[in-house]
């Protein structure tokens, strides 16, 4: 197997929450807990999970916008976990990010041209005219008009703003693009356009994606491999086919079951996950999914399940992945997902 | 003089009792009251420090104004009388102790009268001016605001905006002067000053209401517009309540209630901030005496008035906030820094 483009090894990121008003209580919130991922060149790894499970923090930590508290990151064969800013700059050219909120990721006081040419400016690429031409080219490539470069972000719709963000991310011709919920803030019809755009760009520019979303259907559409994240830990990982047709972890199954099913006779009401995601301040000793899992047992409270391989690259972290039979109704709804 | 203080005290107690149902509410109220005391404390320290930082003591400064020299033995006697011989911190402690009992000593400009005595006699004038201004500016401000909202882009709307621009731009004392010149000097219709008959009220109230009209008009207009666009109004119309009367009752009630919260600080500001108007029109209220105290460097008077004013304004904000807290408990949540 070729060396992966991006690899994280036991990556951990935690935050200290201090209480104001002289309450010097310091609690630690572990946002990313010993995550192992790898992305091969030219492929897309999807990362799914609820809001608050730590996906964005993971993305930012990989980009070294947060400092990791543990573990390592390797990019294109190089250790970048502790690289100094100077050395990191050249790595940064190859690893770019598209953000969730399109308008927030653009400086509203700059013109589109200034925004897209910023990466070129930072790395001193080309003259002013050359940059201008490149901006025009990129704008056309993402589906906007070259004339738009004189306008301000506020004049565009959400979908168009996200296209601008994508154009900016492509300016440096990166190898890896981390898309942090790039379509979550957009209307459904616009989502489809942006997703298709991303797929086209992947072929044309030979990009690899880390595609983050809370929507497993969208993720499955975009990715060859999927990792499911809950409370900072990866609970299941495998290629898209395995995950969508044979999910083993109860959480994954619940995510799939939650996909709206148009045919009422085939709707599955069995697997219900209780409650909302909680903010954990003391990390659970057992399985993080304990309180919401429909099949939790005694052992789940004491022992943390490790990621174990079920079928080749398909790994699950659940004590009952081996023993449980697949609920036939889940199996049916899983197979419905066709692209 | 003490009657309003008792009233305020009663209001506070009432609010505390009303809010006692929820502990959070009580804590919020107590913290706000503590804040009030803190502000008063700081104001007193600042004004005390400033008054005593004038080199040579107050008498030299005042003498300098009058271009006289103060003989040594007289200075000694004056220092005795006003207790200026003791070390500064002791003076301050004495000041605070006396202040709590509302004893601010003797005025320097009127050596036979106590500061509190002066305030007691004069404050009713300020109160009258303030109340009249409040009534007038509410009528005009709210009226214009409603007219602007109900008939947008009409004469009323532009009139309202024009008036508010005027109020924003024109300093109250400039307006007062202009009024005086036009109506007293040139036309002779109105007296230049004093406060003995209703004719005396017109110009001061007009001049004093500028700021209030501005705030009220803008606020009312915005509030009315927001309410009129609200969904429940549209629902009412859809239900067939096309009778303007009924709609107005709905809209008015909801749009105008928030005004009450603006009204508190506004009223306080009116009573307090009228010293320009009082000076120009010779209305013997607290503001007038404050201005003359400044001119004659009458330190006890200056300090006492400062404290009273800060107290009034802070109380107004406090009561407004407490009322708000009763109505909308979200306010009591501690702010996340």
């Amino acid at each position: 197997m070729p060396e992966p483009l991006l690899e994280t090894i036991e990556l951990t990121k935690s935050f200290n929450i201090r209480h104001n008003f002289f309450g010097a209580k310091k609690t630690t919130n572990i946002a990313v807990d010993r995550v192992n991922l790898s992305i091969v060149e030219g492929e897309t790894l999807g990362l799914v999970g609820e809001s608050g499970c730590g996906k964005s923090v993971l993305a930012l930590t990989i980009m070294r916008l947060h400092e990791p508290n543990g573990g390592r990151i390797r990019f294109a064969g190089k250790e970048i976990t502790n690289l100094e800013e100077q050395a990191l700059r050249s790595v940064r050219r190859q690893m770019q990010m598209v953000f969730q909120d399109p308008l927030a990721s653009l400086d509203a006081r700059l013109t589109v041209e200034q925004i897209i040419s910023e990466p070129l400016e930072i790395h001193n690429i080309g003259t002013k005219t050359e940059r201008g031409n490149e901006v025009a080219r990129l704008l056309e490539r993402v589906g906007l008009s070259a004339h738009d470069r004189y306008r301000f972000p506020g004049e565009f719709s959400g979908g168009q703003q996200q296209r601008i963000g994508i154009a900016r991310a492509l300016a440096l011709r990166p190898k890896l693009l981390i898309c942090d919920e790039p379509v979550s803030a957009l209307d459904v019809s616009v989502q489809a356009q942006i997703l298709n755009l991303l797929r086209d760009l992947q072929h044309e520019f030979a990009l690899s994606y880390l595609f983050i979303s809370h929507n497993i259907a969208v993720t499955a559409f975009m990715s060859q491999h999927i990792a499911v994240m809950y409370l900072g830990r990866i609970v299941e990982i495998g290629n898209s086919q395995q995950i969508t047709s044979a999910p083993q972890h109860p959480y994954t199954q619940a995510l799939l079951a939650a996909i709206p099913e148009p045919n009422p006779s085939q709707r599955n009401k069995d697997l219900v996950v209780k409650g909302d995601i909680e903010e954990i301040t003391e990390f659970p000793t057992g399985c993080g999914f304990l309180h919401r899992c429909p099949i939790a047992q005694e052992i789940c409270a004491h022992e943390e399940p490790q990621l174990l391989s079920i079928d080749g690259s398909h790994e699950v972290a659940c004590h009952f992945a081996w023993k449980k039979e697949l609920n036939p109704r889940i199996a049916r709804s899983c197979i419905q997902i066709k692209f | 003089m003490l009657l309003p203080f008792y009233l305020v005290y009663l209001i506070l107690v009432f609010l505390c009792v009303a809010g006692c149902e929820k502990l959070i509410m009580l804590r919020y109220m107590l913290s706000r009251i503590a804040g009030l005391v803190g502000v008063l404390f700081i104001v007193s320290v600042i004004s005390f420090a400033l008054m005593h930082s004038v080199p040579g003591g107050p008498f030299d400064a005042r003498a300098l104004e009058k271009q006289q020299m103060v003989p040594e033995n007289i200075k000694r006697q004056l220092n005795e009388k006003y207790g200026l011989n003791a070390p500064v911190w002791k003076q301050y402690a004495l000041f605070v102790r006396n202040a709590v009992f509302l004893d601010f000593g003797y005025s320097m400009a009127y050596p036979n009268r106590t500061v509190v005595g002066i305030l007691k006699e004069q404050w009713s004038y300020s109160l009258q001016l303030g109340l009249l201004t409040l009534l007038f500016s509410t009528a005009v401000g709210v009226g214009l605001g409603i007219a602007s909202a109900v008939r947008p882009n009409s004469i009323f709307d532009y009139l309202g905006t024009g008036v508010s621009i005027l109020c924003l731009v024109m300093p109250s004392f400039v307006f007062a002067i202009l009024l005086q010149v036009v109506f007293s000097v040139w036309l002779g219709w109105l007296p230049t000053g004093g406060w003995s008959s209703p004719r005396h009220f017109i110009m001061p109230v007009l001049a004093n209401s500028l700021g209030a009209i501005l705030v009220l008009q803008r606020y009312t207009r915005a509030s009315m517009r927001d309410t009129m666009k609200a969904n429940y109004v549209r629902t009412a119309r859809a239900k067939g309540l096309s009778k303007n009367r009924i709609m107005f009752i709905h809209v008015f009630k909801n749009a105008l209630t928030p005004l009450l919260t603006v009204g508190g600080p506004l009223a306080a500001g009116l009573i307090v901030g009228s010293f320009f108007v009082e000076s120009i029109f010779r209305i013997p209220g607290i503001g007038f005496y404050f201005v003359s105290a400044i001119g004659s460097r009458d330190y006890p008077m200056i300090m006492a008035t400062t404290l009273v004013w800060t107290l009034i304004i802070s109380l107004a904000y406090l009561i407004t906030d407490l009322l708000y807290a009763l109505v909308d408990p979200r306010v009591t949540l501690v702010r996340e820094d």
Partner: protein
Amino acid sequence: MRLFWRRFCRNKLALIAFWFIIAEVIVAVAAPYIAPYDPYKGDFLATWETPNRLHWLGTDDLGRDVLSRLLYGARISISVGILSQVAIATVGVPIGALSGLKGGWLDYGIMRVIDVLSSLPTILLYILLMVALGAGFWNLILAMTLTGWIGVARLVRGQVLSLKKADFIRASRAMGGGTRYIIKKHILSNVMTPVIVSIAIGIPGAMFAEAGLSFLGLGIPAPRASWGQMIGIYQVYIRTAWHLTVFPSIVLALTMLAWFLFADGIRDAVDTNSNVSIVD
């Protein structure tokens, strides 16, 4: 910059105000050359004169020409207005920026100070400070700076705090932008625009304060000419010498109107996001 100008010019009222201000500034600067008489020298044979051919706006109690004094008064008003705001920005912006960037105890401390100071009524603070410091041009500027930095500091701090979390700052770092680059390209422009608006709006406010304080005798002392001071001193003579108070009043009111409209225009022109009209 060009874009800003175009947007600004769309607002007719603001444009008129702008030219008025330019004219006034030119007049003020040129006052020593165009004033018909020396504003400090009184002609004792021509005291208390109402407007006539020799003295277009009349003379005051010492025989000084009112028109000349008004022209010089313009210099005072404008310089107090601009200088005080510049001083306030110079003090307030770094404090606010530091407070926002560093956070922690520094931020907490500064916020408490700001909270306390802002709960005191400004007029009172001005008066107390000026009584203690004594009347005078630089004392006035000092007093205004001491009370005024709070607003700007709070504004800047708020901007910095929201910028710290902004995605586009993260994006810039992700692209390899260094701290200095980010500050220059993103933070400065985002922070300075509200500050500029605040300064523009603060100038007429400062003029107002100066006029009010001078009126009370606490601002600019005689014999220097300040509009507020003139109104204050001659207010008692309004029956016999109305010209001594009316003309300064008119000039003051017009100037403040112009500055407010101008500041409004700047505020609207600077906001690249919305299309707000002035009448709202």
